[in-house]
């Protein structure tokens, strides 16, 4: 199956300061990512702050132009920003992010906000649009009487539903969700997670789900890519990656999640500070915090490649004797 969206060698870097002489210092947020999103799947991107996951998400949507590499949509290169082609494509690709209150206009009613994209693109008007809005609201579980409310009158979970229904108004094919449930309480978070799963299962929406919450990613995503300092270090079906993590970083990440009722058992506590993209270690970026790294790890950047049926970017994977056959 051909991927709906494909990223090849994506790199993004930002200048971190000014310099009177010579090249200004820069920081690589994303450092060479290859990724393929298949039609109808939810691909999770997990990582801690500084891993470049949000930057990657914006590049996948064409909201940010990569420094190097390219994004292909259905086999075609992304059109240049702010062209007609780009606008048409943008309608098919939508972004949902963490803070719904920031994404909504606080002086517009819920119904007006959901109808807005329909009107901007001149698709529907009047009664037809009102009908579509009612349909969208019902789809995400908002009550009809909430149509005339304003964002501040709704709870956080309800606001995120409004954002989702507005994103759905254009019948998109592809959603990028950047930490969409992180600001929500546990009981509400589950409601939104289920809604996103329904959208995938019933309407065949393709999604990239960016989150630092491994539990949520594991629940919602078919496949997952783990990022560390701008590179994908492990990729695979989410059950495999979280059930039997292979990369030392993924192992530490998975074991750092305390389990309700049991807490932290047999945990790997990573030493050292969270990674800083402005000071990337040479070689494998994870080696200063890695328990099994040796001199070779400081000298070579490992590529994401197949080792024992799994995709990992770790020099040690070749040497590791398979764990007890799981």
């Amino acid at each position: 199956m051909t991927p709906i969206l494909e990223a090849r060698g994506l790199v993004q870097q930002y200048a971190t300061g000014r310099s009177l002489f010579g090249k200004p210092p820069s920081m690589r947020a994303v450092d060479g990512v290859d990724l393929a999103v298949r039609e109808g799947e939810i691909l999770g991107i997990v990582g801690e702050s500084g891993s470049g996951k949000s930057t990657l998400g914006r590049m996948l949507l064409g909201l940010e132009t990569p420094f190097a590499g390219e994004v292909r949509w259905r086999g075609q290169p992304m059109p240049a920003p702010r062209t007609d082609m780009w606008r048409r494509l943008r309608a098919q690709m939508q972004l949902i992010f963490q803070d719904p209150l920031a994404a909504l206009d606080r002086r517009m009613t819920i119904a007006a906000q959901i109808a807005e994209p329909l009107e901007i693109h001149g698709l529907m008007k009047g009664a037809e649009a009102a009908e579509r809005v009612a349909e969208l609201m019902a789809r995400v579980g908002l009550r009809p009487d909430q149509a005339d409310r304003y964002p501040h009158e709704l709870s956080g979970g309800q606001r995120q539903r409004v954002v989702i229904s507005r994103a759905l108004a254009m019948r998109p094919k592809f959603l990028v969700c950047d930490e969409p449930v992180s600001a929500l309480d546990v009981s509400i978070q589950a409601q939104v997670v289920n809604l996103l799963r329904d959208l995938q299962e019933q309407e065949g929406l393709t999604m990239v789900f960016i989150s630092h919450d491994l539990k949520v990613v594991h629940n919602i995503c078919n496949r997952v890519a783990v990022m560390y300092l701008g590179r994908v270090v492990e990729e695979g079906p989410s059950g495999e990656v979280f059930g039997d993590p292979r990369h030392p970083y993924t192992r530490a990440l998975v074991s750092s999640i305390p389990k309700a009722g049991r807490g932290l058992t047999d945990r790997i506590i990573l030493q050292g500070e969270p990674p800083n993209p402005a000071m990337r270690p040479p070689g494998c970026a994870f080696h200063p915090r890695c328990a099994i790294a040796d001199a070779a790890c400081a000298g070579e950047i490992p590529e994401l490649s197949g080792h024992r049926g799994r995709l990992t970017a770790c020099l040690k994977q070749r040497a590791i004797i398979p764990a007890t056959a799981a």
Partner: protein
Amino acid sequence: MAFVSIRDLKVSFDGVQVLHGIGLDIGRGEAVGLVGESGCGKSVTWLAALSLLPAKARISGSVRIDGQELIGAPGPEIEKVRGARIAMIFQDPSSSLNPVQRVGKQIMESLRLHRGLKGAMARTEAIRLMNMVGIPSAETRVDLYPHEFSGGQCQRIMIAMALAGQPDLLIADEPTTALDATIQAQILDLLSTIRRETGMAMVFISHDLGAVSAVCDRAAVMYAGKIVESNEITALFAAPRHPYTVGLLDAIPELDVTRARLQPIKGTVPDPKYLPTGCAFAPRCTHATDFCTTDQPELKRQPDSGLLACFHPAGRYKTETLTRREELV
């Protein structure tokens, strides 16, 4: 008698009651978790106990530490308790430190206040504390400002500052929520280690049930300004009795089960201005009866263990939950 005992603590802001009579005992050296969603009053309880709420808050009830009443006590008396007997650390470590003061100076301020240490002695002790909480090369970094540390390190400095007063009780208010997963694990580990070494009691406030079970012996679940259930950690998670506790546990995805659909709690947390007359959870509870919508259940000691405020506790739910989990594993 318990070291700290809270009785019928009530708080309201502008006529809206947010805390509806909290009763809680903390023993010496004990680690108690306070669990619940935003707005349930878990932080307000301790901010009220230490008079850290804004002046418009109306507080009634009783908070005693070794028999000394804190509610209504004069300012200087409460100041003697803050930091010296009960210390507190907060959710957002980076903005909880004074941005224009060197971190060492902020730690030394507590040392002067509670242990009378000054000058070189205070500085040496501040460095020792920074080392103890795992700040590398503390000798040189004692004179840096908060923005020169990462979020995790700022939380370590907050912990060092709290330890400076050698408190009997540490209130940790969502101390790991703003941190990344691996750093979160480091801080949880640090808190457990310190508690083992100093023997101080701890109240760990969090919405993360996993984090609570990592560091606590016992936990209380709060909903809409009340404690609805409390028990030993193992009992609470293995056999939750209040439908809200059951719902919370079901709503959290776990890493080691297959990807089943989550079971959310329907509806939303009630607006404290318009609380239901009966049990506050009744509108969201699948097993509520008419009785639940008119009468408020009291928090009562249960025959086996723990405290519970529910007319229709789960026993039945428990087995259902377990079967659901078992068939998924």
